[in-house]
């Protein structure tokens, strides 16, 4: 028994020692590893979108600079970045974060500031450069709908009108994608007057849909319900509907949701921060990169000439197109960064009734 206790104590000490050694060795590597050439490790959103990012940003960057890009199949998130920075064990040199999240992480001091001596502001389209991030893509959310049930593109009021347009609706549990905004638009709030969000009013509106409202965890699931005809309208992004439409399904997309951003950021203490800054400068200056992104996804990149050379049909889908701007409100990243937790708590309460 005494032996066993002694062994346990030794093991505990060894364990604590090993853990702290791990931490400090990583810190050393971080200090020494920011030299020349080499590589950057990127955590992006993956999937078909990730393939587009590779073609539009990573491959041209490697070609232009010789710096290799390691793409991790990891889902970057505010929590993951904060944790890596807090533990001084930063794995990612570039992390792609949602617009509000990169503002939160920036104000928490968890991100490197963008080096605007390298990134030329003149290269960027309006609103694409943040204090701690450069837009990877701006996209438009909206309503995916069945053309056999609706004969013209719906409004958000139509989305919440099950009398005139019967059938299920899906909305996202991931509320940063605009769930609450759309409820307010459906309730008649003007798109210029959305923020600050009236949370109670938004939730009352969603309650009005009753059992016709389905909360989904993934947009793939929403697409499935639209394809099968179970849902008449779904809250989704253009990139999810265009392939279904091209496959011949009776569906279409109304680009009337939020215009939102994702951004490339550099977690504080990234091992290859210098190369990561070069990456940000590169995608800001590379017009053909943003054009490739637009062609592949109908999302717009950071460069101000990113729509040049595209067909009129391609341009019309971009969040920068005047018709989209006229219909789709811009997400207030700042409001979300400051009020995200409050909104989530209100939504969780609704979602668990």
């Amino acid at each position, binding site marked *: 028994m005494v032996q*066993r206790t002694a*062994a*346990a104590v*030794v*093991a*505990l000490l*060894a*364990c*604590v020692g*090993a*853990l702290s050694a791990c931490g400090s060795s990583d810190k050393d590597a971080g200090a020494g590893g920011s030299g020349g050439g080499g590589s950057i490790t990127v955590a992006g959103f993956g999937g078909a979108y990730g393939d587009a990012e590779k073609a539009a940003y990573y491959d041209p960057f490697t070609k232009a600079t010789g710096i290799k890009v390691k793409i991790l199949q990891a889902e970057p*998130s*505010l*929590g*993951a*970045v*904060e*944790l890596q920075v807090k533990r001084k064990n930063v794995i990612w040199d570039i992390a792609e974060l949602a617009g509000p*999240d990169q503002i*939160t*992480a920036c104000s*928490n001091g968890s991100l490197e500031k963008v080096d605007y001596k390298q990134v030329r502001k003149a290269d960027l389209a309006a609103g694409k450069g943040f204090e701690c991030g450069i837009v990877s893509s701006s996209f438009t959310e909206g309503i995916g709908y069945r053309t056999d049930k609706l004969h013209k593109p719906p409004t958000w009021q139509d989305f919440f009108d099950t009398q005139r347009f019967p059938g*299920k609706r899906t909305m996202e*549990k*991931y509320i*940063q994608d605009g769930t609450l905004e759309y409820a307010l638009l459906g309730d008649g709030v003007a798109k210029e007057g959305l923020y600050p969000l009236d949370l109670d009013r938004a939730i009352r509106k969603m309650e009005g849909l009753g059992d016709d*409202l*389905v*909360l*989904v*965890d*993934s947009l*793939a*699931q929403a697409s*499935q*319900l639209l394809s*099968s*005809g*179970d849902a008449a309208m779904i809250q989704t992004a253009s990139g999810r509907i265009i392939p279904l439409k091209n496959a011949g399904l009776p569906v279409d997309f109304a680009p009337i949701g939020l215009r939102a951003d994702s951004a490339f950021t550099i977690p504080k203490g990234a091992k290859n921060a210098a190369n990561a800054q070069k990456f940000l400068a590169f995608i800001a200056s590379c017009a053909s990169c943003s054009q490739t992104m637009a062609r592949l996804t109908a999302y717009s990149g950071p460069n101000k000439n990113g729509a040049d050379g595209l067909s009129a049909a391609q341009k019309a889908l971009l969040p920068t197109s005047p018709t989209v701007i006229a219909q789709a409100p811009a997400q207030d990243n700042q409001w979300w960064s400051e009020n*995200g*937790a409050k909104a*989530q*708590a209100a939504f*969780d*309460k*609704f*979602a*668990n*009734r």
Partner: protein
Amino acid sequence: MEGHSSLLPPRPAALVRARPRQLLGQRRWWAPLLAALLLCLLAVPGIELFESSLRPFPSLGHYDRVFDSAEPYRGVIFDTFDIAALSTLLTAAVGLPFAYYASMRSGWKRTAALLILVIPFFTGILVKNFAWTVIFQDSGALNDALGALGLGHVDLLFTRTAVLIGMVHYLLPLFVLPVYASLVKIDPRLKLAARSLGAGPVVTFWLVTIRLARPGVVTGTIVVFIVSLGFYVTPAMLGGRGNLMVANVIDTSVRKLADFDFAAALAGVVTVIVLALLPIALRYVRPEASTSDSLMGAVGSKGGPR
């Protein structure tokens, strides 16, 4: 016998295998390794988690929020235990006959039964849940079949029933395998002895088979219950509204809000409840083990007197 009561391995295994003493003798050298592993992987992070939940140290603010009646979290924790208990019960109800069937068959029938059980286990949980979506949806395979048979229509997707079906499907091997292992270890002569002493098949099953398999059943039940408490993908994908489990809230807190301390408090509450429940469950293993001891003793096991 008292001297061994503090040792951990389940008794029936030691009883059926003939050499308990040798096994115990060999244990010593890896005991410190096990202790080190437990400390590194459980105790240290556990203490850290607890400390984090009390931040700004020391304060109970995060726990206040968990139990605040104006917040959804108390209900989420209740639902979590509710869903976990129900899915454990259902898993046992399906798993026990399944395990018994597999243990009573031999050759290809046994192999087939175990394969049917285990193959879905190697399919990713996301794929499985997506498949359930397609099966359960209004125009899905299930409703098509019901319609063809003239049995009407069920609204299953995004209900608690859908969550439970998805969970039981995932949990079944975790219950069946330990129970099956217990069942096949039962010396068939014990059943023959019971029958020759006048017990019918039902009495034999109840007094001999089930009692000897009880450690497996209890182990399976505990494993299934604890795993089901941590379910995340299934309630997220099949649950729609009203089926939020604590893992979903922890996920939101950690990934989307980076509120680690609140997530730690949520995890802490669940851990404390489980730790409080565990001794009650384990009590069911021990007396039964001694019953089987005396049973084996009466029959005269190869293990001999200890």
